């Protein structure tokens, strides 16, 4: 049944990604606000994962993303580990929104297909 779970999650992933991209384009067709939308996206993701972490912590539930410990205290090591990642997040999502506000979603993703196939596997 792990296969079925994978298929269901995959289908949900596809649908959510398609919805996110088309709604973003819909927003940009009404107002050109890439920076604001990216800001709000980060807000939604942080609030959503904070709620998930708190709920998982209360019920001691270790899902696919773990979380039984709830929200970890922000220590130096924790922040140091994730700060660089957040820089990349900002850059990547900003450029993505800027692109989506100007060209079609299909083109954006065709370009992404071309370049994201270069993910590194050297150790």
């Amino acid at each position, binding site marked *: 049944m792990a296969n079925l779970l994978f298929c269901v*999650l*995959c289908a*949900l992933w*596809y649908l*959510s*990604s398609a919805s*996110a991209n*088309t*709604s973003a*384009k*819909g927003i940009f067709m009404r*107002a*050109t606000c890439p920076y*604001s939308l990216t800001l709000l*996206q*980060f*807000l*939604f*993701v*942080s609030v959503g*994962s904070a709620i998930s972490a708190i709920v998982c912590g209360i019920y001691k539930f270790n*899902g696919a993303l*773990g*979380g039984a410990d709830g*929200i*970890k205290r*922000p220590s130096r*090591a924790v922040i140091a*580990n*994730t*700060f660089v*990642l*957040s*820089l*990349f997040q900002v*850059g*990547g999502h*900003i*450029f993505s929104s*800027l*692109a989506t*506000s*100007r*060209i*079609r*979603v*299909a*083109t954006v*993703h*065709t*370009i*992404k*297909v*071309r*370049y*994201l*196939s270069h*993910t590194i*596997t050297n*150790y």
Partner: protein
Amino acid sequence: MYLPLVILTFGVMLVCSLDARGNLLGIIFAIGSAIIFVAQNIVAKKIFIRNSEQKSKNRLDKLNMLLYSSSMAFIIMIPIQLYHEGFIWSVFSSAQVTPNINLSHSAAAVVADHQFLQLIVYNGTTHFFQNLLAFALLGMVSPVTYSIASLFKRIFIIIVSLLWFRSPVTTTQVIGIALTFTGLYLYDKAKAKIDKADQALYFSLLPQYRGTDSKRMNVPLRSFDEN
């Protein structure tokens, strides 16, 4: 190994040729975002490895990592947004908003629209679930399976967006898209073959990994939070 790349690039160029005429800057931004996400994947892998070697007090699970990276991204983003589009927030005051040339409609008129707010909430929630699901699937399957899955995801997104917005697609672009995905598929297959050989060699040579099962090395290779 290089033939798939050539097919890929040519395919993408065909697709972009129509859009580039109108908006070259958009194409450049898309390429920029892709490059940044590639760089992120390289760095994220090192961070994940370092993270799994930490004391359990400092070790972050994926949900916490998502939480911290996105909240810090939010904080970093605040000054950037204020600089570029700070005037948008003035809609919440009763002050008159002068239409800015950067906005296609006056901000007040747009934000007052109920549908617009709904769209923003919808975008935020689906974006969050996209991240969550991507992370979950990343941990569930091998990198190769994950990359094939994300390839199909992009096909799905391209088709859905073309149908939804009823965008006119020229034959050139259809050929371009088909070429892109053929090239990518061939590239993935070639890489998987090389990966398998490399991994076998790697495990047999390095003393600290002798006797380690491959599950421990299941470090996410791809697609941290890109949409």
